């Protein structure tokens, strides 16, 4: 209590300095505990403040990058499809369509560490250790030819890395460079002699087709009807329609499973047009032989179990999903597992609603 009063008085002094009127406080909220602050206060600043202990080099990083990052960013940080390119693009900033990467554009190395540790891997954020993060950052730097492969990145060496575009930024100068030009009474008549069309969106033709949007609308509308109309009325309607074999599946459980599947969706795709990503396609996985997707590179551990005849029936999937690394030692699947049995049952029901292609 005395500490509280002391801090009040300090606060009062600060408040006087900051705002002329004494700031009112309400005594709401509770003190944040040191452990809580430590858990969330992870931001790393350009001067290296906030960097944790630990270290890593590009060689360590290459391996981690291949399993954790390469599915989107490419083996060499070159980016796949529309996913961000992390390397290359040096000296392109003053050209048409500059390529902005960690190497060519990012002014501070701290940003890379900060972002990877907190927000990556995509769909599995916050799971990398400090060592892994240092190693991945080192690999990205190496991919940009900014460090040698034996450079050990840690908080002690962090500021030794020179970022090529560190001096490439100026503060917002619109008030000086633009505002002064575009202020005042504008022209109302005879403002120009001729108006010629110089470019047309229809010629470029990149606008989404509205038919797709229409189809979505219909879908949305029908979902809405089933969820909001009175249950009795829906039941009556459903009886009138000949029920297909899906009647056996529990739609509520499948819907629940669809939500749970978001935890998987960063690495796995399912449904029409699904592709292998970090993890294999999961269409038809329930009841399938382990390792059944031919063009996916499974872990050795999984292939060994597959040869022993592992079938992904409900029991096996439940076991695997509850503790992947325990159930299948050596699996590439970097997922901690689903804690609740209901979640496991739901996600299996959801997966079971997709047949093999």
């Amino acid at each position: 209590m005395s500490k509280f009063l002391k801090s009040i008085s300090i606060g009062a002094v600060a408040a006087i300095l900051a705002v002329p009127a004494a700031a009112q406080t309400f005594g709401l909220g509770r003190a944040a505990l040191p452990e809580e602050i430590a858990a969330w206060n992870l931001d790393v600043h350009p001067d290296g403040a906030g960097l944790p202990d630990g270290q890593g080099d590009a060689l360590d990083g290459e391996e981690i990058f291949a399993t954790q990052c390469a599915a989107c960013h490419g083996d060499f940080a070159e980016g796949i499809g529309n996913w961000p390119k992390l390397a290359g693009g040096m000296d392109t900033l003053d050209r048409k369509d500059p390529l902005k990467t960690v190497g060519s554009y990012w002014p501070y190395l701290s940003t890379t560490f900060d972002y990877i540790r907190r927000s990556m891997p995509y769909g599995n954020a916050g799971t990398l250790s400090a060592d892994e993060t240092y190693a991945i950052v080192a690999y990205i730097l190496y991919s940009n030819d900014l460090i040698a492969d034996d450079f050990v990145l840690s908080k002690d060496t962090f500021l030794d890395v020179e970022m090529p575009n560190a001096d490439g930024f100026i503060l917002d100068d619109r008030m000086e460079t633009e505002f002064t030009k575009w202020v005042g009474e504008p022209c109302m008549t005879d403002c120009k002699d001729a108006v010629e069309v110089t470019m047309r969106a229809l010629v470029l033709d990149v606008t989404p087709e509205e038919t797709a949007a229409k189809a979505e609308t219909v879908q949305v509308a029908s979902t809405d009807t089933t969820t909001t109309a009175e249950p009795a009325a829906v039941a009556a309607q459903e009886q009138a329609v000949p029920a297909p074999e899906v009647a056996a599946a529990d739609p509520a459980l499948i819907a629940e499973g669809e939500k749970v599947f978001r935890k998987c969706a960063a690495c796995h795709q399912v449904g029409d047009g699904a592709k292998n990503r970090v993890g294999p396609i999961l269409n038809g996985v329930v009841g399938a032989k382990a390792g059944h997707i031919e063009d996916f590179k499974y872990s050795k551990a999984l292939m060994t179990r597959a040869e022993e005849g592992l079938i992904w029936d409900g029991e096996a999937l439940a076991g695997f999903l509850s503790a992947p690394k325990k159930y299948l030692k050596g699996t590439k699947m970097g997922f901690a597992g689903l804690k609740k049995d209901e979640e496991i049952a739901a996600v299996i029901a959801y997966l079971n609603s997709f047949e093999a292609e």
Partner: protein
Amino acid sequence: MSDTFESNKPNRRAFLRGAATAGVGAIAAGAAGAQTPDPLITETQDWAQSFGDGVDATPYGMPIQFEGDVIRRNVEWLTADTISSINFTPIHALDGTITPQGCAFERHHSGAIELKKEDYRLMINGLVDRPLVFTYADLERFPRENHTYFLECAANTGMEWAGAQLNGAQFTHGMIHNMEYTGVPLRTLLEEAGYDTAGKWVYVEGADASSNGRSIPMEKALDDVLVAFKANGEALRKEHGYPVRLIVPGWEGNMWVKWIRRIEVMDAPVESREETSKYTDTLENGISRKWTWAMDAKSVVTSPSPQAPITHGTGPLVITGLAWSGRGAITRVDVSKDGGKTWETARLAKPGEKMALTRFYLDTTWDGEEMFLQSRAMDETGYVQPTKTQLREVRGENSVYHNNCIQTWWVRPNGEAENVEVS
């Protein structure tokens, strides 16, 4: 890519759909009288004879089915994945200024999460006397304010830097919405924690997997930033940051952190990913501007436009659109029908409000001639919305964000409209 005008489907389809919707009425419109009695009048219609829905048919209503095309739309080729992506508000089909939450554009970096009020925590730490944790219930006990503000993504119109690309106001200008927010001033929370005057910045981050952290100067944080939990009277929708988001009036949307979980008072900015590698503006010489937070004055004609063609023929025509400025209130909007040769001052539906959308109308008569429709906003600072040419002279074509140029719609004699650039 070899398409001629005739073969371009989206526009054509939009036109035909519009015509079909207008139906018999459109043909009979104008000065000409009806030749035959209208069965909609002379015959008893179902809706005039039997019942409609009872109350509770829809405990929380959706728009009527006939408005089913007034929806957010995505441009798939823009991003790799819808989880980290953006869609667009159907501004071509809305009127007034308030954007319903259900069709207000979404931008997520790691998807729209589901965070219960009971599980919500907001931490204030850093240079404060009392690092604090608030629950949702705590926030509701601070004095509240109501304010209407626009939120514009810095990338709105960003695809148009190099030329006319997307054919519709929804796609060129739909990364915007305007809502009435209820919340607690950030200043109140900072005072509650006893912020240190050495703290020149606050860092704000979200509870989602992206965390989407941004640094905001203390001066702004103490001025008008809100920690909001309601929008347009109801709880924030999931996609808009339920249960609590940050409101940073007039400044780029990326700073309006959703699912806000932490506010740190700092002496220097974090220089996070979202404020260095993104949301910075590269000029022609390769040097990039940073900390370009304010959204400059801007406007667009929402109708007629490519998705909202003229279907009623010649005669009375309402030209309407939206204007806004991150530096204050809109004071005037001019409209040109001839691509900027001559301008007429439009009527503002209401006097402009600071950092909120302003609706304008030009009530006019269309003679059926082609038009090059443009709008030009002015705000209380005297700033006049620039042309694309003026913008490019200063910034080149390599910028992504903060494109507030004057937009041109080429309206053809058949009423169809197209996104074009003019000299």
